């Protein structure tokens, strides 16, 4: 039986009268690249933030690596790497200093830390720019450094929240290749993106959220079956997504239903 890395049971988040996440049940197995899809305001980021302990659930339970999150929070967090949607790097620190700082927060030190800094920078193709300041980097380089900062402590679960926003196709392709490589090395990945082709290209299973609920979950083939009687139909993920969530615009403001 596959080991369950992330298990959400009846996870709910309520802001006053608004329900951002409504009784979500999900399981992410070891070795998966799990894609979380949904229109703006569907509850993807809130769900991810609850897994990352950045937002406190109103009710429900999160189990990470088989343990209840509340009980083993620190231990669980040390096994997770987080790549937030907005850049999380100090502009005033050099590339290697950024990786060093964030890796050191996980207890890595000394020679091991130096090695991990170089390995992480090399992995994202920034070793030769290790002494550069992020303020002088291109958008793609910053995104890669953002990822490198989450790798120094060898996470078993990597959570990536739209890591390819605003970068050129070459950088995007490079990042996707690296995510696939990490997954081959045994890292479980939870991935969100608005780019359907990215999800389609790398994710083994996909959950589609709308209005705070998971409305569909499975492999691409399983999702096709939900919208078409013929599984052999060549339906893109975008078509599935629009069929399930509708074509209505989702202009959304915080705190407004």
């Amino acid at each position, binding site marked *: 039986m596959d080991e369950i890395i992330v298990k959400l049971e009846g996870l709910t988040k309520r802001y006053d009268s608004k329900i951002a996440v409504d009784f979500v049940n999900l399981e992410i197995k070891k070795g998966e690249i799990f894609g979380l899809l949904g229109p703006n305001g569907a509850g993807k980021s809130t769900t991810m*933030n609850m897994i990352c302990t950045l937002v406190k659930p109103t009710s429900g339970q999160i189990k990470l690596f088989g343990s209840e999150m509340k009980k083993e929070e620190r231990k669980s967090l*040390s096994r997770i790497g*987080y790549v937030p*949607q907005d850049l*999380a790097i100090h502009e*005033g620190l050099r590339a290697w*200093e950024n990786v060093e700082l964030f890796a*050191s927060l*996980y207890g890595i030190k000394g020679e091991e830390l130096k090695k991990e800094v170089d390995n992480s920078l090399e992995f994202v193709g920034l070793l030769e720019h290790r002494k550069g300041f992020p303020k002088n980097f291109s958008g793609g380089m910053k995104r890669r450094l953002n990822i490198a900062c*989450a790798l120094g402590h060898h996470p078993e679960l990597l959570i990536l929240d739209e890591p390819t926003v605003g970068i050129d196709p070459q950088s995007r392709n490079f990042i996707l290749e690296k995510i696939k490589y990490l997954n081959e090395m045994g890292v479980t990945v939870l991935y969100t993106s608005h780019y359907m082709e990215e999800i389609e290209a790398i994710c083994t299973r996909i959950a589609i959220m709308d209005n705070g609920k998971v409305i569909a979950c499975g492999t691409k083939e399983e999702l096709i079956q939900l919208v078409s009687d013929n599984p052999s139909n060549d339906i893109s993920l975008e078509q599935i997504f629009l069929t399930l969530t509708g074509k209505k615009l989702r202009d959304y403001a915080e705190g407004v239903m």
Partner: protein
Amino acid sequence: MLRYLIKNNMKLIFRGKLIFFMMILIPVFLISMLSSAFDSMLNVNYSLQEYEVGYSVTEDSYILPILETVTIAGSKNHITLYPYSKEIGLEKLNDQTLDLYIEFGTKEYVIYQTEDTKAATMILKGVMSSCMQGEPLQGDSYLVETLDSNPIPEAKNYYGIAEIVYMMWCGIFSISAVINSEKKGQIRSRMKMSPTSSFRFYLGKFIPCVMILCIQMGLAIIITSFTLGIDWGDKLHLSFGILFLQAMAVSAFSIMLYQIFQNIAATIVACFFIVFSWGFFGGAFQTYMFATTSETMAKLSPIYYLNRTLVEYSTKGSSEYALPCVVILSAIIITGSMVSILLSRFCKGERI
């Protein structure tokens, strides 16, 4: 892991060169400006002027037996007596080359003074009254008592110390480079995602802030000592011990304010308002500068104890304000640290 947090936070502070040097140069500028601007104001009530007094005595005057005694007592009180005829004496008084003229008659005396020399009249009358008790007074049969009083600091030394104390309370500037950098993007989310405790994150800001403040104020003290000749007295180890404790209190206080407001601009405004109030009520060493300030309000200000302790260490090497000063600074360190850690722990999603 704390070592790397401290090291990188210090790098962020050092790389913000403008704020770093501003914290060194502003006190130097303020000290040189204030010490020269308020030099006369600081000393006006305390320096006793030398007065020259002319006199004449009739041959049968009651004063003759004790005239020598009056002359000696006068000189001890900065009054020098010169014999002049009344005509010349009054002329000199008019020209302001004499401060007073006194005409001793048979059983009475008349003092001639001007508007500017009333203080000399008061002193002279005090001397006369002391000397004439138990008439006739002989030699040392009278007593002019000299009271011990606190030595008054020179303006440059006073402001040299007070402005260092005041500027150090603005230590929020020193740590603002770290706070501003952490606010950008989702750095705080990433930090919170790590297994590092709130206490370590607190120390990661507290220790660099203390170290940077010590470096900045240390440099300001060295510069003002060499350029303006500020004298911190002989008990340097005690003075610097108090300043180190203040650096810790300032760091804890600044971080606590930031944890409360979660906005660097609001924190700076609040910090300046509080420190200005402390300085206004309790900062002035001499209450004549703020005659209406209540003593109770002054004693609520940590600056009241800090200024007095450090200035008295400079002038007389000891201070009865030292103990309350240490207690108050320790209380600020403990309270500030606890509030900061509790706020960051219980509001984890928002604060680091």
